[in-house]
């Protein structure tokens, strides 16, 4: 946990620790996030993260909506993996209400969710490259790929960011004609894009020098700190909710769970890169299996749902880790309590443990490797 600091250099001059305020408006903080670093020379001796700049009270707002209206707030937490967050909420509602989702809708959800994972990880790779000093190129490459997927989503949902497409019991409307072929095309390009990124970054001299061996985290620490997603898998814990507690139809697909060995920053990147490839595999299989015809909504779903009494903690594997929703229903038209367990919130809470003992410039990389989305942290 506590990384041992190198012995202080003896100087004749007296030195003092310096407080450096990073953020809230700073390109390296990936949003409105502030950390107060105390540095001794270039070494970080303390870090105090300050969050909440994006706190909108999403949980409270959802508790004052009906079940359908609350979907929109899920898009606005993790704005890079909107389908995945919506999906978690749907799972919670469907579990409490005992709603069966038609097969075709499940496949649509899987295809969109996995494509969203790819686009989110593209975003990570681009932004992370910029953190490290690979200015421009990986960022532009990954944005190009992400844009293609984004266009696809726009075609399905009519929106580029806040999709609001999943509904309790299915999806809002059917996918457009020729969607499967378009997904195949985009997927082919995305796979090429992943290979491009791989070639650009993985063996890059700068990248290796700055990431390999930086901030290794042991599995025990990761579990205790509440890590999930790629952050946890990078430490070598083979835990993926799609496999550990299969939800939806994930038990039908054949895919690997990439894990790291040392839990350092480089492993976190490698795990995400491999995850993109695995997601592409899942999408390919889903495209093969998806029925051409069939309902996309469970029958008899009223627009204003009334769920029976009940509670559930639903969780899914979003690109950033375990996104959970603790939903309590008391027979009303809306959630009685809706708690969002944000993976970034838990991952970020260990920033102090991770940053202390590293150089100031590396603290920025460590922060970038968490892949934070501040809207999800603050909710």
């Amino acid at each position: 946990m506590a990384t041992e600091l190198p012995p202080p250099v003896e100087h004749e001059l007296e030195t003092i620790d310096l407080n450096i305020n990073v953020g809230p408006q700073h390109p390296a903080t990936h949003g409105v996030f502030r950390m107060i670093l105390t540095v001794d020379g270039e070494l970080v001796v303390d870090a105090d993260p300050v969050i909440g700049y994006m706190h909108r009270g999403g949980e409270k707002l959802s508790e004052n909506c009906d079940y359908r209206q609350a979907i929109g707030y899920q898009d606005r937490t993790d704005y890079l993996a909107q389908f995945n967050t919506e999906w978690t909420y749907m799972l919670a509602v469907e579990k409490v209400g005992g709603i069966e989702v038609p097969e075709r809708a499940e496949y649509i959800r899987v295809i969109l969710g996995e494509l969203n994972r790819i686009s989110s990880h593209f975003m990570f790779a681009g932004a992370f490259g910029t953190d490290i000093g690979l200015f421009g190129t990986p960022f532009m490459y990954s944005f190009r790929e992400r844009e293609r997927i984004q266009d696809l989503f726009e075609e399905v949902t009519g929106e580029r960011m806040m999709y609001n497409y999943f509904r309790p019991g299915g999806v809002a409307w059917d996918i457009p004609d020729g969607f499967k072929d378009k997904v195949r095309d985009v997927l082919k390009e995305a796979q090429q894009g992943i290979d491009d990124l791989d070639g650009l970054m993985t063996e890059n001299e700068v990248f290796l020098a700055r990431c390999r061996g930086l901030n290794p985290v042991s599995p025990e620490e990761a579990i205790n700190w509440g890590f999930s997603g790629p952050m946890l898998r990078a430490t070598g814990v083979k835990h993926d909710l799609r496999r550990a507690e299969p939800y939806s139809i994930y038990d039908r697909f054949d895919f690997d769970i990439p894990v790291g060995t040392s839990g350092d920053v480089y492993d976190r990147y490698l795990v995400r890169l491999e995850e993109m490839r695995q997601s592409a595999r899942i999408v390919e299989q889903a495209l093969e299996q998806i029925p051409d015809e069939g309902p996309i909504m469970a029958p008899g779903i009223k627009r204003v749902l009334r769920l029976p009494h009940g509670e559930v903690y639903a969780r899914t594997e979003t690109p950033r880790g375990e996104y959970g929703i603790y939903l309590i229903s008391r027979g009303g038209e809306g959630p009685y309590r809706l708690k969002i367990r944000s993976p970034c919130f838990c991952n970020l809470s260990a920033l102090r443990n991770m940053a202390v003992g590293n150089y100031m410039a590396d603290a920025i990389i460590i922060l970038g490797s968490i892949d934070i989305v501040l809207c999800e942290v603050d909710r």
Partner: protein
Amino acid sequence: MAEQQAHPGQQQATLVAPPPGTVVDIFKEVLSDIELTPYQTAGDVAIVVQREDLPRVMKTAKEHPRLALDYLRCLSGVDTYKELEVVYHLYSFRHKHSVQVKASCSYDEPHMPTVSHLWQTANWHERETKELFGIIFDGHPDLRPLLTEEGLGYYILRKSHPLAEIEEWQEDYLKLAAELEAKTKPAAAAAPAAPSEAEDRAAKVALAQKKAAAIKKARDEARAKGLSTEEEKAFVQQALRAVEEEEAKRAPVAASAAAAPTPTEDRAAKVALAQKKAAAIKKARDEARAKGLSMEEEKAFVQQALKALEAEAGPPPAPSAQAQAPAAAAAPAPPMDRAAKIALAQKKATVIKKARDEARARGMSSEEERRFVAEALKKFAAEQG
């Protein structure tokens, strides 16, 4: 929701017992002397424990080899209208089982033992729950507000703290709008075209309100009947059509609006003037270039030509009083050429520098220095006239 507000004390009527063979049985076996209430949620199995037993239960849950719940997934606060609950969701990587643990405390004494020494991830979760529910976690190392650095002073996720009504939210805005309306009303009354527009708008608003009422009524009726979404849509549309037909019958065709006289002549005059000006500029410029004047000279030449044109045309025809006022105000300001401007700026810079140096020599604070410089500048401006 409204219904929940009406029955705040409503509780889940019956707790379903979990099936045998779950992690709850291990809990019962290991902690046989503690009273646990197990039940089944729509997802995991759950146990309810007394607050006094919580530290022991949690320590055992984490450290007992048969439980080994080493991962705290989520920690949530819940306000049940009767008491405050804290719900823990735990998972074991070794045994792959998960469980929900619930404990509660009263509003009067909102204290809970901390679990942040067992799972570090509870640290921020408890900080957040303290901030939003006001539950104090005893033994927590750092209970500063997390999401709002300065703290809110009230607990927003408690049910006793309702969302503000939209009017309350927009209080300032509405007040401002009312003031603005009061201010502009006499002016609007004077304008000839305004009333008809306002009337038109009022009629439109009335129609929209009527429609909204019809939609609401139809929807309520449809829901009372228990129609499906599709049927409900059709039903509402039918009601809407009825309203529109009624409206069409009632209102005579009154929309033959008299074409308002637009000030086209005004515009034509302006255009003519601009064209004349353009021609003069072009002519002057051509002449200047033919003479081989420099850029600076050319500019002066063109300006001269323009001035001549203006003198010729006489004072411009004032289209309205409003337009005349700024023009009159702008007129006295003498045009300053570039060289003079630069000279002035340089002079100003000298003044500022001198004042600043003096202020620093006197050991003034930065606030005083700023004031001192401003004064010097004011004096300079007065000197310049």
